[in-house]
């Protein structure tokens, strides 16, 4: 189900350097639950691409399966998109990138898509240092199948059925650091002032750029006791009256100064602890980034911001020593060695 968006544009809309209005970067109307954190991330992507002056047709957006993976329909309608199979977006992105190194590749995934079924592909695309931006919209649960715990749910986090999660969470940012990702960041869907610059930095980064974005699920991870949830006490009875009921919520936003830790009080009274990286943080030190993530975890805090960047990175094309032009522009004159070469091969086989 898709809705048409109004064509009306604000008369004061300004074009970016490549001649596009911000509205040119929009997608179709979202069919996610109202108040879903993912929509804020879509908005941040639109803003980042507009501000970065990316020509929409020069970007390819790719995803797997899940709520997060539906979002590429909701941004950048003028870009080619590929909604692939569950957990396998990285391989599609790898092939696409190998075919044309000159486009910008934006992959969108979720915690189910990347931390469970697709963890193998997630890890190997990092190893290869594919030049792409990889955003995980991380809500700790499976939304489309109605709220099962995901592998990023914290120990002790209570799910919708009241069960406490007993299994160790997978920290995708820590994993990315461990596997040699050349850009690692973590953010919060409600923090656009942080997220937009991070996405811009990631899209500009010439290697694999990973952003883990905590993005609460308004519908299935909204119970008290969940570490990735918000819930309205005053709407609680509505939720229990029908499991299909989707409460309308305002998105949570947070605004704070660099270097400050901030406790964000969620709608249900639980607290999301954000720790913005200090201004003197060295983003080039992988070891300290891994240490800081561990430290934050032990304090029950969510560390956000740019965690690590290696600007002098060697992406997959460099590793494979491919020609400068995109492989998809080569034709038989470049690719077919001809009958003379074949005659020599034949001779050698006699």
């Amino acid at each position: 189900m898709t809705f048409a968006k109004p064509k009306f544009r604000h008369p004061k809309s300004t074009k970016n350097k490549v001649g596009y209005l911000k509205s040119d970067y929009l997608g179709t109307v979202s069919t996610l639950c109202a108040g879903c954190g993912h929509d804020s991330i879509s908005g941040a992507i639109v803003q980042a691409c507009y501000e970065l002056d990316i020509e929409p047709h020069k970007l390819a957006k790719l995803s797997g399966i899940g709520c997060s993976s539906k979002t590429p329909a909701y941004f950048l309608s003028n870009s080619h998109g590929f909604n692939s199979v569950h957990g396998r977006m990285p391989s599609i992105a790898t092939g696409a990138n190998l075919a044309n190194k000159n486009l910008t590749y934006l992959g969108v995934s979720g915690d189910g898509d990347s931390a469970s079924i697709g963890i193998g592909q997630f890890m190997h695309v990092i190893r290869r240092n594919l030049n792409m931006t990889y955003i995980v919209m991380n809500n700790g649960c499976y939304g489309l199948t109605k709220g099962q715990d995901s592998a990023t749910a914290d120990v002790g986090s209570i799910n919708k059925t009241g069960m406490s999660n007993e299994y160790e969470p997978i920290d995708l940012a820590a994993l990315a650091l461990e596997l040699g990702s050349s850009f690692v960041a973590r953010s919060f869907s409600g923090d656009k002032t942080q997220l937009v610059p991070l996405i811009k930095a990631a899209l500009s980064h010439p290697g694999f750029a990973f952003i883990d974005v905590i993005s609460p699920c308004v519908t299935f991870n909204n119970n008290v006791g969940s570490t990735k949830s918000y819930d309205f006490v005053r709407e609680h009875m509505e939720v229990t009256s029908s499991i299909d009921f989707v409460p309308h919520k305002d998105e949570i936003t947070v605004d704070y100064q660099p270097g400050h830790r901030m406790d964000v009080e969620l709608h249900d009274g639980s607290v999301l602890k954000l720790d913005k990286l200090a201004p003197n943080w060295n983003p080039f030190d992988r070891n300290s980034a891994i240490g800081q993530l561990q430290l934050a975890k032990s304090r029950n805090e969510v560390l956000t911001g740019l965690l690590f960047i290696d600007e002098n990175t060697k992406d997959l094309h460099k590793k494979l020593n491919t020609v400068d032009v995109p492989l998809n522009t080569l034709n038989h004159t470049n690719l077919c060695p001809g009958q003379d070469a074949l005659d020599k091969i034949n001779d050698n086989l006699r």
Partner: protein
Amino acid sequence: MYSVNDFVIRFANVNGTGSASANGIFAKSIFRLGVPIAPKNIFPSNIQGLPTWYEVRISEKGYLGRRDGIDIVVGVNPQTYADDIASIKSGGYFVYDNSKRLHDSFFREDIHFVGVPMMKLAMDNYTDSRKQQLFKNIIYLGAISALIDLDIEIVKETIAKTFARKPKLIVPNYEALEIGYNYTKENCNCPIDFRVRKSDKTGDSIVIDGNAATALGLVYGGATVGAWYPITPSTSVASSFEKYCHKLRVDKETGKNNFAIVQAEDELSAIGMVIGANWNGARAFTATSGPGVSLMNEFIGLAYFAEIPVTLINVQRGGPSTGMPTRSQQADIISSAYASHGDTKHVLLFPSNPTECFQFSALALDLADRLQTPVIVMSDLDLGMNEHMTAPFKWDETKAYDKGKVLNAEELDEIEVFGRYLDVDKDGITYRTIPGTHPTKGSYFTRGTSHNEYAKYSEAGDDYVKKVDRLLIKWETAKKLVPKPRFENAASKTPYGMLFFGTTNYAAYETLDLLGENGIQIDAMSIKAFPFTTEIFEFLENHERIFVIEQNRDAQMRSLIINEYNYDPKKLDSILHYDGTPITAHYISTSISKALNKSEKQSQAL
């Protein structure tokens, strides 16, 4: 028992001892003598220490299928002496290493035993143990050359050609060869009853394994992206592709590669990369075997439904599960034809020799682009990993690649509204665009979920039905594009037909001669592709009784024919061979003769 240029010789080795090189030189030398050869490796799924055999059928008549019964065994592996000796036909020869005395219990009255002290000769001539091991192989090559009257100069030529890039190895190999040759000439009765003689039956043929030929076809066909995961017996498709690319596809000016090869983390990722690359306008392929195709099933369905070209090489082995990873079968017919969940069917090509591997893998890239769908090349272990004598490769240089219906920016400017899945030409094939082509036109959202003609998400039943029904129109179009079957008609009209595909061809064509000698007339059809073309249907209609010969248990090709044509199963007799060894003409002809005799008796009884 005297026989010239017509016998089967088998080398019984231990794997990991370097015997492959010596055995290869043997087969190539016979070929260079002008005598057709059919070599087969029979090897375990193991690196070192287990028995391995190398069998060469030498056939002046040019029969390239496996033949039952072994005339000569060169026994270098005491572990398998008992079985090796038992496998020899009466009147045959067991050539063995008598450095240690052969126990009396091994002797058979009806075969000849020729002892050559291979290890002792190696120890006497070489001090280094690795050299003793390696040159022992060349010593037995010299011994067998003397026994079958193979001109040692021809073997030397082959050695020189084999080690052209490592010239230091040539002379030491000559020396080892002569050690074995001279010892045998002086101490054994040479030549034996099975011998070779110079002939002219190889023409301009070449000798190559199917996987290397497939890889070369992919290079010539314009594949730029190869993604793969190691699996026997397909691994050498990828490694050969890489080898040929480094030779033929490096830009001379910049030293940069006109190709990208990725060893993926698994088969799922390999085919994902292929789909991504093809979606983005490059020609990409993956090579795997049955277990890999099983893993790729979900993605194959996506490519079918989202209409993305895929070239997939399936080098079949013995299944199910891990099955017989180093043995050959044609047992992935159904699982490849209908791979993935939902209603799917895929184009299959059945090469029967390396020349067709070359042609069909290049063709697969064209067909995949033209039809915007997965195309699977159905090779097998026998074809892929064994060397075959085959026609030389030819390439039509006047032909450009068929990239199919891809719109460029100018063409997009001319269209008012672009519909990715709009059947403009009514052939079931729609126009596609490559990302980055046009600033405002042609972008669309690719998805495996149901979509309408404009690539918009749709759960409407009629949109879905329209889509999947159009894919059937495309299927009809495919029938006009795939290779037609090859026929071999009997001298006179006959109600009997036999059909086969892939490597069964070798034995099947030999069968025609065997049956002819027994006065049985039968028409033959070699199937080259699925979907089945009209010619196949006509063949089925024009015969009363058809033998479907295949190398699997469940008569999978027969099922496909019955299913696709609603064909009368009673008219289709199965001849099935599935022990992992390549099928033989003897097996086929005996089966057909028995079946026809039986039905004759039945009709007489009535």
